């Protein structure tokens, strides 16, 4: 068991013929991901790593059953491509692309919600169920199979947290990158619900970041409904207020969305909060044993 993806998941790659699309397709195949088709408008009939390429998602779903689409498309066509995947009936869409206009993201998010589609991203490293399936750009050598679920607002931090857990022999059920933009297609709390229902996941680790109120919302869900122990870390406690640090997610405005307000909300919900990244493994270890 795992969430969102497993060894049977059939994957479509949109933007498969681009540089990043092709490179990452190779890496995903190496991890056992069942990629059945690719789409790039105008490149229909070509093959990438022996995978057939089509012009439209519609053509793909007429020929194959697709569970997940992962997108490596330019930001300016991201909205079009996501809506194309949703209209073709695909229920999980993972948008890796960085720098998508936020107004486009708002439209995609609203449309996905309307069609009951899980949209992960943009600016996400994707999802990995170690040993079974990888959808996205996560470097697989940082992960190993196990029972800890990880949800991270930051891509690179999800790698580090997983690697540090592996170093003490703790593997992961599924690792989900939320996407680091101002607006995320799916929020923390929605992924938390999936982990709560997953039999194999014993402990969940949340890697949050300053900015927004997603961690505060997650804390409320944990307090009222979560039946599994949760460990959390919020990056950016030493970030000076008012500085824009990298992706749009990491902005501190006033007191809202600060590391302090998130930590307080999580502690109140009974979450074990790591003050520093390196405290996560020992906190998790206590809970899995």
């Amino acid at each position, binding site marked *: 068991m795992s969430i969102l993806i497993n060894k049977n998941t059939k994957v479509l790659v949109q933007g498969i013929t681009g540089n990043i699309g092709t490179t*990452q397709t190779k*890496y995903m195949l190496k991890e056992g991901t069942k990629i059945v088709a690719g789409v790039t408008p105008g490149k229909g009939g070509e093959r990438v790593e022996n995978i057939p390429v089509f012009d439209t998602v519609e053509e793909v779903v007429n020929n194959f059953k697709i569970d997940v689409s992962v997108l490596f498309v330019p*930001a*300016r066509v991201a909205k079009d491509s996501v809506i194309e995947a949703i209209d073709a009936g695909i229920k999980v869409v993972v948008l*890796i692309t*960085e*720098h*998508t*206009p*936020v*107004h*486009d*993201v*708002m*439209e995609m*998010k*609203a449309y996905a919600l*309307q069609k009951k589609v899980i949209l992960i991203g943009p600016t996400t*490293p994707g999802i990995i169920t170690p040993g079974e399936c990888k959808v996205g*750009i*996560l*470097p697989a*050598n*940082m992960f190993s199979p196990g029972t800890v679920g990880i949800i991270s607002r*930051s*891509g*690179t*931090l999800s*790698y*580090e947290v997983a*690697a*540090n857990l*592996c*170093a003490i022999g703790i593997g992961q059920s599924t690792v989900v990158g939320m996407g*680091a933009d*101002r*607006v995320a297609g799916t*929020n923390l709390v929605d992924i938390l619900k999936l982990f709560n229902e997953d039999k194999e996941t014993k402990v969940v680790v949340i*890697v949050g*970041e300053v900015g927004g*109120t*997603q961690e505060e*919302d997650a804390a409320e869900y944990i307090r009222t409904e979560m039946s599994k122990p949760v460990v959390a*870390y919020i*990056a*950016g*406690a*030493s*970030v000076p207020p008012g*500085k*824009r*640090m*990298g*992706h749009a*997610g*990491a902005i501190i405005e*006033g007191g809202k969305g600060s590391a302090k307000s998130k930590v307080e909300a999580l502690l109140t919900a009974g979450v074990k909060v790591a003050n*520093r*990244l*390196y405290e996560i493994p020992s906190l998790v270890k206590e809970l899995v044993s």
Partner: protein
Amino acid sequence: MRLHEYEAEEIFSKYGINIPQGGLAKTPKEAKQIASNIGVPVVLKSQVLVGGRGKAGGVKVVDDLNVVERVADEILKLKIKGYKAEGVLVLKKVEIKKEIYLGITIDRTSGIPMIILCSEGGVEIEEVAHRNPEKISKLAINPLQNLYSYQVIDMVKKVGLTGKILVKTVYIVTKLYQVFKDYDGLIAEVNPLVVTKDDEVFCVDAVLQVDDSALFRHPELNKRRLSNMSERDKRLMKKGATFVKLKGNIGLICSGAGLAMATMDMINDYPSLSTANFLETGGGITSELMVDCMELVLKQPGLKAVFINLYGGINPIHEGAKGIANIIKERKLTIPMVAKALGNRQEETWETLEEVEVHVIKESETQKAVKFLAELLGVK
């Protein structure tokens, strides 16, 4: 990208939003010319992109046409937080009966635009929201639909407006939302929106911040932004890298914002160490980008060391390592450097870095690399 007030006002005007008469002056003489055209009293406003310009003396009311030139000269010469004004905005002063706050922004968690009105304008909106939440009226907009003016009537009534003023304000709110949407706004704000003694409604201030990621849809704004950037900044922006200058002694390069923040937290834990900058490469590392990053970081005064923390997911870190090695060789750098680099093609990356005597940490814990850095520098 935050626009100047005069630029935002030009856009608002195009949409039929009421702005007091006036214009931008680049010289004191031009300011006087504008003032004599529209008549005194006028408000002279410094056009700088930093907050707190009123307190710094950048906004002045002038009743006498003969002193406009002198006051405009003072404002044009005034530096606010180190920035010189791009010009002085000369606006006809309006007679204030009531001030309202109007803002449109994005609710990050739900991912929808929000219109906010407050019956108290010209003040810090956060304070009012805290003190008198009943004075605030909010409307969430479905991003998939247009906003129709009838939807706005209720929220405008809630801040106490009626009759003609209600209708005029509803028009402005609806048009401002159109600006927000058409210009890929992150924030569109009017503080205050003024109701005058003769029942006109004017925007007396104009804020418009445009999403940088959407500038490809706004070539005229993008052109202006690029004209203010160095060649290196343009290259960094193109690759999606972000550099923020801080005050510290450790140069930092990380391949992700979260990783960079977590690394900063750990370095800043040492009382005698602090990060001199924040630099995240984004997902487009190349050998050349890394040279740009290194040059930026090394330019900072008082550096004790450079700390590099990279993951090879989407990033070809083996290419990044070549850039680091090139600049070390070329400039014969001797500053201590510690690098942790993991992920796809990590072995090649380590080899390249070790050849140029970068201290390479091969474990996954950033903390161990930071500890190594501290020991290398002999600090606790």
